[in-house]
C-alpha cells in the first residue's frame, strides 16, 4: 500500500527534481517516462484492488471517484509523455531552447499537482493544490514564446486564479456549513458526506454555487471558458491534449466533490438543476462558435468545452446519465489526445491554423489526415467508438428522468455542432489541394503520434462494449456515493 502512494506521489516528485536538475532531454525523457509508467501501473493496481492506500478520514484518500479520475489523468499523461520526444525533436528552433528545457519539469510537476488534487480529501488543501496545477502548466502554454501565447497565458493565469478565489469562498462556506456538525467539524469529504444531515443547507447551497462559478474557468464551462479556449488553442499539441484531456477532467473532479456533498444534503435537486443549466449553456456557447469557426485549434478547444458541458449536464441529470457522464469524461480524454496531437502536426506542417487555407489533408498528410478524420468521427459519437455508448447512456438518463426539454435542447445542439464541425473538418480533409506533399518534403511517414492516437481511439471500443469490471465496479460505487440508482 505504501508502495502505491510512493508510486503515485513520490515518483513524480522525484522525477520533477531530476528533470529540473538534469539538462539532457533524453535522461529527462526516461525519468518522466518512468514516472508516468509507475503512475499508470499504480493507478491500474488501485482500480483492480479497489482499496484506499491512505488511512480512513485522513486528508488524503482515494475513493472510487478518485481512482477513476486518476486513470484519466494517468492515461492521458502517459500518452503525452510517449509523444513528447517526437514533439520536442521538431522544436529545434533556438528560441524554443528555454521552453524545451522547461518542458519535462513542467510536465512532471503537473503530474504531481494533479495527483495531489485527485487524492486530496480535504477541501481546504484541495484549493491549495488545484492552484498548483495551473502554475505547473503555465510555462508550457507559453511554449512558443509568441505574442498570442503570452496573451493566452496572461488571460488563463488571471481568470483561472480569479475564479479560484471564488472557489476558496466556496470552501469557506462549506466550512461554515460544517459548523453545524459540532466540535469534530472538518472539511474532509468523507466526514462531510457522513454528517451530511447536520450540514447547514443554506451554506451548502452557497458553497456549491461559488464552487461552480470558481472552478468553471478551469473546467471551461461557459461563460467562464474564454481564457481556456485561448490557452488550449495556443499551447503546443501535447500540452493542449494534456489540458483538454486531463486538466479539465481533474478540475471537473473538484466540482464533483462539492456535488457529492450537495447530493447528500437537501440541496440535491438544486445542485442538479444548476449543473444542467451550466452544462447546457456551455454546449450552446460551443455550438455558437463551432457553427462557423475559422481556426481549427480553437474549434477543437470549443469542442472540449462542449464535451465538458455534456459531462456536466449529464451529471446534473443523474441516474444512468451519471454513468454516461463518467464514461464520457474518459472517452473524451481519449479523443482529445488524438485530435490535439494531429492538430499540432497539421499546424506544424501547413504553418496555418486557418480552416479555409487547409486543403486536401488526405493527400498532403495521409496519416495525420486519416487519424484526424477518424478522431472526428470518434468525437461525433459514431459507433462503435466509445462516445456513442456514453451518449446513449446520457440520453437514457434523460429519458428515464422524463426530462424532455433537456433532451430536446441537447439533441438540437448536438445536431448543430455536428453540422458545424462536420463542415469544417470534412472540408479540411477533402477539399482539393496540392496532391501529395509539396516539393522537397518527403511523404509523411507513420509516427508514434499516430500510433498513440490510434491506440487511444481504439481502446475505447472494448471498454465500451466489454464493460470491464475493474472500471465499471468503481463506476457503480461512484453512483452509489452520489446516491444515484441505475
Amino acid at each position, binding site marked *: 500500500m505504501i508502495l502505491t502512494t510512493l508510486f503515485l506521489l513520490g515518483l513524480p516528485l522525484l522525477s520533477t527534481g531530476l528533470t529540473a536538475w538534469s539538462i539532457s532531454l533524453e535522461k529527462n525523457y526516461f525519468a518522466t517516462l518512468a514516472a508516468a509508467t509507475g503512475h499508470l501501473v499504480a493507478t491500474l493496481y488501485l482500480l483492480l484492488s479497489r482499496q484506499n492506500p491512505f488511512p480512513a478520514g485522513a486528508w488524503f484518500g482515494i475513493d472510487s471517484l478518485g481512482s477513476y479520475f486518476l486513470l484519466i489523468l494517468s492515461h492521458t499523461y502517459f500518452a503525452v509523455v510517449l509523444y513528447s520526444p517526437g514533439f520536442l525533436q521538431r522544436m529545434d528552433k533556438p528560441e524554443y531552447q528555454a521552453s524545451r528545457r522547461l518542458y519535462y519539469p513542467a510536465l512532471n510537476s503537473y503530474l504531481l499537482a494533479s495527483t495531489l488534487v485527485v487524492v486530496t480529501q480535504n477541501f481546504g488543501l484541495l484549493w491549495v493544490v488545484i492552484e498548483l496545477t495551473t502554475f505547473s502548466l503555465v510555462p508550457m502554454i507559453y511554449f512558443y514564446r509568441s505574442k498570442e501565447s503570452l496573451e493566452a497565458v496572461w*488571460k488563463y493565469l488571471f*481568470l483561472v486564479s480569479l475564479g479560484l478565489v471564488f472557489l476558496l469562498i466556496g470552501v469557506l462556506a462549506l466550512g461554515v456549513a460544517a459548523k453545524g456538525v459540532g466540535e469534530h467539524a472538518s472539511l474532509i469529504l468523507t466526514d462531510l458526506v457522513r454528517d451530511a444531515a447536520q450540514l447547514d443547507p443554506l451554506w451548502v447551497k452557497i458553497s456549491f454555487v461559488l464552487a*461552480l*462559478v470558481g472552478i468553471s474557468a478551469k473546467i471551461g464551462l*461557459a461563460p467562464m471558458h474564454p481564457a481556456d479556449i485561448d490557452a488550449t488553442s495556443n499551447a503546443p499539441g501535447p500540452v493542449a491534449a494534456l489540458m483538454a484531456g486531463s486538466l479539465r477532467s481533474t478540475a471537473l473532479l473538484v466540482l464533483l466533490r462539492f456535488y457529492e456533498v450537495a447530493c447528500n444534503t437537501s*440541496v440535491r*435537486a438544486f445542485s442538479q438543476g444548476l449543473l444542467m443549466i451550466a452544462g447546457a449553456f456551455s454546449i450552446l456557447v460551443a455550438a455558437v462558435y463551432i457553427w462557423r469557426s475559422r481556426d481549427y485549434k480553437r474549434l477543437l478547444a470549443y469542442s472540449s468545452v462542449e464535451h465538458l458541458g455534456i459531462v456536466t449536464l449529464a451529471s446534473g441529470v443523474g441516474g444512468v446519465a451519471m454513468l454516461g457522464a463518467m464514461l464520457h469524461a474518459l472517452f473524451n480524454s481519449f479523443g482529445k489526445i488524438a485530435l490535439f496531437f494531429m492538430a499540432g502536426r497539421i499546424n506544424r506542417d501547413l504553418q496555418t491554423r486557418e480552416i479555409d487555407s487547409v486543403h486536401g489533408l488526405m493527400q498532403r498528410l495521409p496519416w495525420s489526415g486519416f487519424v484526424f478524420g477518424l478522431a472526428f468521427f470518434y468525437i461525433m459519437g459514431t459507433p462503435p467508438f466509445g462516445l456513442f455508448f456514453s451518449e446513449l447512456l446520457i440520453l437514457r438518463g434523460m429519458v428515464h428522468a422524463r426530462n424532455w426539454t433537456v433532451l430536446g435542447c441537447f439533441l438540437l445542439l448536438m*445536431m448543430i455542432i*455536428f453540422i458545424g464541425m462536420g463542415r469544417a473538418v470534412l472540408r479540411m480533409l477533402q477539399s482539393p489541394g496540392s496532391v501529395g506533399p509539396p516539393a522537397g518534403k518527403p511523404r509523411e511517414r507513420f509516427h508514434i503520434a499516430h500510433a498513440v492516437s490510434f491506440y487511444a481511439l481504439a481502446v475505447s471500443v472494448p471498454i465500451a462494449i466489454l464493460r470491464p469490471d475493474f472500471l465499471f465496479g468503481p463506476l457503480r460505487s461512484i453512483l452509489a456515493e452520489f446516491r444515484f440508482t441505475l
Partner: protein
Amino acid sequence: MIGFFILGLVLHAAAMAIPAVLRDDRLLNRAVNPLNALALVCGLFFSLTSLLASQPWESRLALPMVGAIPLSCDGIALLFLFTFQLLSLAGSIYAIGYLEEYVRRGISIRWHLVSFTLLILSMQLVVVVQHALAFLIAWELMAVSAYFCIALDKARPEVRQGAFWYFVATHASALFLYVFFILLHERTGSWEFADFARQTGWDAGTLTLLVVTGFLGFAIKAGFMPFHAWLPNAHPAAPAHVSGLLSAINIKAGIYGIVRMFMFFPSDRQVFGWALLVVALVSAVGGVWYALTQHEMKRLLAYHSVENIGIIGLGLAVAWLGRCVGSPGLVALAFAGALLHTLNHAIFKALLFFGVGNVYLYAHTTDIEKLGGLTKALRVTGVGFLIGAVSICGLPPFNGFLSEFLIYKSFFQGGSLMGGFAPLALLVAAVSLAFVGGLAVACFTKLYGIVFLGENRSKSPARLGHEPISSLPVLAGLATLCGWIGFVPGTALRLVAPAVTEMSGLPETRLSAELISPLAGLTPVFGLLLAMTLLTLVVKLWVQKKAGLRLCETWGCGYRNVTSRMQYSASSFAEELVRLGQPMIGLRVQWKPIVQVLPEPRAFKSHGFDQIEQGLWVRLDHAIGRTLVLLRWIQSGSIRHYVIYIFAALIVYLVIAFAFVW
C-alpha cells in the same frame, strides 16, 4: 444454408482486407468487386432458398462478456436481405466497368472500395440483427460508409456538398432512432426486438412519442417528403453504381425500419395509418412533380425515388388501416403490394441509374438538354432504360404494374371494408395514384425521348467512351427481372409470401388462394398480348417487305435546314405541367418581353427548384446561422469582459439559488 451467408460475410471481410495488400488501383478494382459479387452470390443462395422454402432462420450470437446478440432472418428480414443482396450483386458487377473511368482519371478508389464493401456488408447486417444496439451500430456503419462511397470524386465541390447533405440527414435520422430505441428500452427493459414486439399495453403518450420518433428516424432515411431534400443532392454527387444502390436499397433500409415498427406496435389507432397515408401521398405526388422539373438525369431519378417511396408508403398505410379494422386479407394485400414494390423499385431504379451511368461514361454529361439520340450508340442501355422506364411508370406487363395493381386493389378493398369517409379518402388516394402514374408517364417519356431518341443536341457530337462490358449483363439481367416479375407474378409473390404471412397472420393456404393464384392468372393474359403483338409485328414486317421501305429526312413541315438544336427540349416538354404546379413547384424564369419594333437578341431561361429544399431546409440552415451569430460577442477578447461574466454568472446563479425554490 446459413453457412453460405456466413461465408459471404467472411468473403466481404476478405474483400475489405485486399486494399491493404494490393497497391495498383486497376487490379484492386478487378479483385475487390468480383470477390464481393462472389460473396453476394453465396448470400443470395442462402436468402433465396430459405425464402422459397419459407423457412425463417434464427440464432443467438453469444459473444464473450457482451452477451447474446439475437440474429434472425424472419420472412421480412429475408425479403429485404434478398433485395439488398441482389442489387448489391448488380452494383458490384457494374462497378467493375464503371470505376475503370475513375482509375483512368487517376482518382484513388482504394478507400472507396473499402467503404463500398462495408456498405454492402453493413446493409446485410442491418436486417439480420435483432438487437437495438447492434442495429444502431450497423445502421451508423451503413450511413458512414455510404457517405464515403458518395464522396468518391471529392475534388468537385458539388460532390462534397451532396455527400454532406446525406451525412447530415442520416445523422439526424440516427438521433431520432437513438431516442426511439431508448424509449423502447425504457418501457421494456430490453434491447431485443422480440421483446419489443412482445410488449403490450402501450399508454397513448408513449405510443405517440414512439411512433413519431421512430417514423421520423426512418422516414428521413427513406426520403419521405419533406425529408427528401438529401436525395436529389446526394444522388448526382455519387458515382452511378453508388447512386443506384442508394436509391435501390439504402433508402429501403428506412422502409425496413418502418415495417419493423409495425411489428412492435400492434396498435388499433387508425390515426397513424391516415397520417402515413397523407405523408405518402404528398411524397408520391410531390416527388414525381418535382422530378418533372429536373434537367439532370440523376436528380430526376432521385425525385422518382421519393415518389416510389411514397407509393410504398401508401401500401404500408393501408396495411396499418387494415390491421386496425382487423382484416388480415386487406393487410396481406396491402403489404404484398408495398413489399413487392420495394423489390420492384429496387430493381428498376438500379437499372435506370446504371443506365445513366453508361450515359455519363459515354457523353460525360447527365444534363438532359445536352443529350439525344443515344439509342443508336448505346443499344443495350437504350433498351434496358426503356424497360426500366416502362416499369417505373407501372405499365403492364412489367413488374411496376404488378405492385401498383396490388396497391390499387388494396384501396378498393379497404374502401369496401371501412365505413364513413374512409372509402372516399381511399378513392381519392387511388385517383392520386393514377395522377402520379400520369405524371410519371410524362416524366419518363420526357427523359427517354429527349435523351435516347431524336438527335444529339450538344454542339460537340464527338463521342467519348463506350458501354462498359461489365454493365451489359447487369442491365440485361435487371431488365429481364423486370419483365419476368411482370409476366410471371407467381414467383415474385412467393418471395414476399413469408413476410406477408408474418405481418397479416393469414395462413399460407388462404394467402395463395386469395393473392397469389389470382395474379398468377395474369401470365396467360400477358402471354396473349405478347402473342398478338408478335403476330402483328410479323405481319407488319411482311407487308412492309412487300410494299417497300425507304429512309429519308424527317418531314420538317416545310422548314429547311432544320438542326438538331431545334428539337423539342426537355424543359419545353415539361413546361406546361410545371406551370400548373405553381407555386408548389418552384420555377425561375428569366426573360425580357419584346416591346420595341426592332428587338435585340432575347434569351429565355427557366429552371425549376425545390421549394421544400430551398424554402425549408436551406432557410433553416441560414436561420440557425443568424441566430447563433447573435451570441458571437461572447468571445470578445477583452479580459475585462470576462471578469464581468464571472460576476454576472455568480449573480445569476445566486438569484436562481434563492429566488426560485427548487
